[in-house]
């Protein structure tokens, strides 16, 4: 990659991603509303929300939570940048993962009942999410022969046909990151929940906006991982379609299920997710896929 490309990728990752993500959550809300027989907010609603939050008077419950909010955003952005620079997949995922840990840490740093519970549940959520996300790199690397994302691009063939099992399992972390049913146990998109938005309880105003924006990066990050399953040459829109397809399935599932409990989530993620990805790798090893 030339340095021009690098700079361009970084700029896209840092600036364009939140714009796209904001629009995407606007569409998400609109679609969800329509599925529920409502009209829903305007598509640019998320931007109104963020700007409004930024304009609110700061109000905090402790300094540590702010530091972790920044760390969350910083590391998540780093992960997105690494992805844009087509760096090592495992490393990128690890960075993303440790960014995600900052969110519960921020929540746990305030002695607040709901924040604490949200933090603990978020940790359990990461316990379910992280192994799947990391492990999904394995069948990919088996197929393309390296962990470098650049090599996925160089591979020249779509991964989905041989890795559809992994792709399907990856929808679990996507739903988890998007905080959708049945996995929205720690901090739901919607407030009507026993934890009063859990990990986000103690953030307000500009800091809530900060965390929200970080969350946008995170969403785009996982969706881009889905997109990696169909990169062929210059047909970049195919990966976009694949990613959006996964996103839409998650939306549908959100609307046809209720929230389940953490124990179900961990058992499901570990039991089904890990087993299936491992199975996928074994099948590739055996040359059957």
């Amino acid at each position, binding site marked *: 990659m030339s340095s021009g490309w690098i700079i361009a990728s970084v700029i896209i990752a840092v600036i364009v991603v939140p714009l796209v993500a904001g629009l995407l959550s606007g569409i998400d809300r609109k679609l969800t509303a329509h599925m529920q027989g409502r009209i829903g907010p305007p598509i640019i609603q998320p931007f109104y929300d963020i700007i409004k939050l930024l304009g609110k008077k*700061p*109000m*905090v*419950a*402790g300094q*540590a939570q*702010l530091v972790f*909010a*920044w760390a969350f*955003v*910083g*590391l998540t952005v*780093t992960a997105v940048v690494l992805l844009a620079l087509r*760096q*090592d*997949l*495992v*490393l990128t995922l*690890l*960075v993303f*993962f*440790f960014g995600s*840990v900052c969110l*519960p*840490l921020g*929540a*746990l*740093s*305030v*002695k*607040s*009942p*709901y*924040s*604490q*519970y949200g*933090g*603990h549940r978020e*940790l*359990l959520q*990461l*316990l379910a999410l*992280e*192994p799947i996300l*990391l*492990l999904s790199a*394995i069948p990919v*690397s*088996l197929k393309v022969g*390296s*962990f*470098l994302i650049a090599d996925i691009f160089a591979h020249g063939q779509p991964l989905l046909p041989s890795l559809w099992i992994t792709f399907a399992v990856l929808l679990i972390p996507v739903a988890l990151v998007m905080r959708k049913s049945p996995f929205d146990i720690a901090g739901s998109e919607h407030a009507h929940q026993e934890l*009063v938005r859990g990990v986000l*309880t103690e953030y307000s105003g500009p800091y809530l906006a900060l965390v929200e924006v970080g969350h946008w990066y995170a969403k785009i990050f996982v969706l881009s991982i889905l997109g990696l399953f169909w990169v062929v040459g210059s047909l970049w829109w195919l990966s976009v379609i694949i990613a959006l397809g996964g996103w839409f399935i998650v939306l549908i599932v959100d609307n046809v299920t209720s929230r389940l409990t953490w124990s179900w989530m961990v058992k499901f993620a*570990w039991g089904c997710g*890990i087993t299936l990805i*491992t199975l996928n*790798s*074994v099948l590739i090893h*055996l040359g059957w896929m």
Partner: protein
Amino acid sequence: MAEVLIRLLILLPIVTGSICLVVRKSEVRAGIVYLTAIFLIVSSIVLAQQWSLPLKYYAGPTSKWIVLVLSMVMLAYIVFVAAVDIRRRGVTLHSVLTIVVALAAAIPVAVFQFALAPEVPLVANPALYVDHFSLLRGILISVTCPLICVYAIRYMKNHEEHLTHLGELKRTRQPRFFFYMLVLIGAMNGVAFSDNLLWLAFFWGLTTLCAYALIRHDETPEAIAGAFRTLWICLIGNVGFSAAIILSWYSPLNTISLGALVSNGAVGYPVLLLPFALLCVAGITKAGQIPFHGWGIKAALVSPAPVHAILYPFMTTGVFIVLYVSPGFVGTQFATFLAIFGAASSLSLGLIAISQRGSISILVCSAISNLALIIVCAGIGTPLALTAGVMLVIFLTISMILLYLCAGVIEQHVRSNDVEDMEGLARKQPLLTGITMTAILSLLVAPFGILLSKWAAIQAAAVIGIWSSLVLALLMLSIGAATVFWAKWLGRILCQTPTSESARLEPFVPHYHGVLLTLVGFAVLSSVFIAPLYNAAIVPIIVGAGYDPILAFTTEAWFLRATGGVFAGWPIFIVVAIVLLIPFATMKVRPEATRPAFMCGENVEIGSDEFVAVGDERTPLMTGGFYIEGLLGEQRLDRFVIPAGVVLLGILFAMVAL
């Protein structure tokens, strides 16, 4: 010069330790400890400049008999101790097993050496053999362990004051304590440098004995039970050594030199696989891997913090041997299953740690779980894996010791090692909290070296064929579990009630904060300078093992590049620095912007963690952590983990037989 220093690294601590035993004045003892510490640290720095390796030290013929006799005396002493215990406290499982295992270790060697093959030459094989790997190991021990001793000077003083206050202590036990601490350092250096299996076995046993004595330091019934458990489990290693000595002598190689065994390898000489397996079992017991993890967790409950801290390098000694001999069996089925075993062990302990409440128990579980990663690396055996293993040895030693020491200080401060009681430490001891946080983060997040090593391990594990999927699945789950328990602990110490007052730094205690900050410095610097460190310290090890270091990493402008990908550690450091600096620099929290936590509207006032409940009374808010004992409790998991460990070990030996 170097030879002398190496010998001093082993002998000097033993000598000064013995002096401590007789010195009754604590100031003098402290002086001796300082001097020893300074000597060890300085000589390791000097040795670090020494690149004309390997160094060999051939002992004279009589030394063989000295070592033999010492070994026998040591094992006899162990039998004696166990016998005394049986007389005093009745027959217990652990003391009986101690006697059985000690005899099983002693008798074969005695028969072999005195009766069957007294001609086994010691002169032909070097007694000590210092290559880059063992030097690195020796330096790590000689730099970190003296710091533990310095820390212990203050710690044990407080500890004994507390015990005296409780009326549980009549006479100071510190002379004995420092004796064993220092001897343990010498013995660990001995393990690092020995090449002759007889010597190795002797030092190996000596470390076990010291560990045993240190664990029972407080002389409570639980401590004694825990100590004996440690003793017999770790002595299994010596049984393995005894068997390995005999087997390798009767192998075609006709040697008892570790170096010779490793350089010839099991591929050429399949009979060597059994001695290797036995050495690995020795390492596994000592590193407290499944199914032997019980000793570590039990010991964690009963002994003072510096003991835990020094038990960490002690356990590392176990995986060091496994990693050291791993080039000898690379590529065999045995190696693959060793990797699976390590991954399973890592996951098991990671899960057990989630349900632990004691800070030391968490640390022990995490230590074992991390050491298991090194075993995985040994099993994988590629250059990259070897690199990952060595890096893990380095970074983990620093971070884990740091954490143990932090836990000790916290424990003395809050008078409990229950993580739940550490709530709000961030307000009371901001500096200590900062150090602990750095230590925990150094285990978890990029850009610290441990993450790099784990990344390298993952890269390496991906290429071992069909079993790699299993190994990796277990590894990923274990990484996930680790994050949960660390974050939980971190959350607890950071947890504080919102208040508009700002926290004040606690007074600086050199023995504590000084030592801790030194270790933090090591952790950070070693991670920042990872590329030079790799070039200087690790590349020679890879070369020494007969590999091409290109296959592990190449360095370019502070990046490490593996065949699988690039580790861009340096940019991440910058990001982290920025991320941490922005809020600190820009966000001065104004007191009036502080609001109490959300408590459904029933808060009492800012700065108070109470809410109004029944009958308008103030009710304290309690926010305990998650321990998921129903799902992940130690007892519950042990029902699966111990059988699984036994079965996996069985499979390992089955692989040897194949």
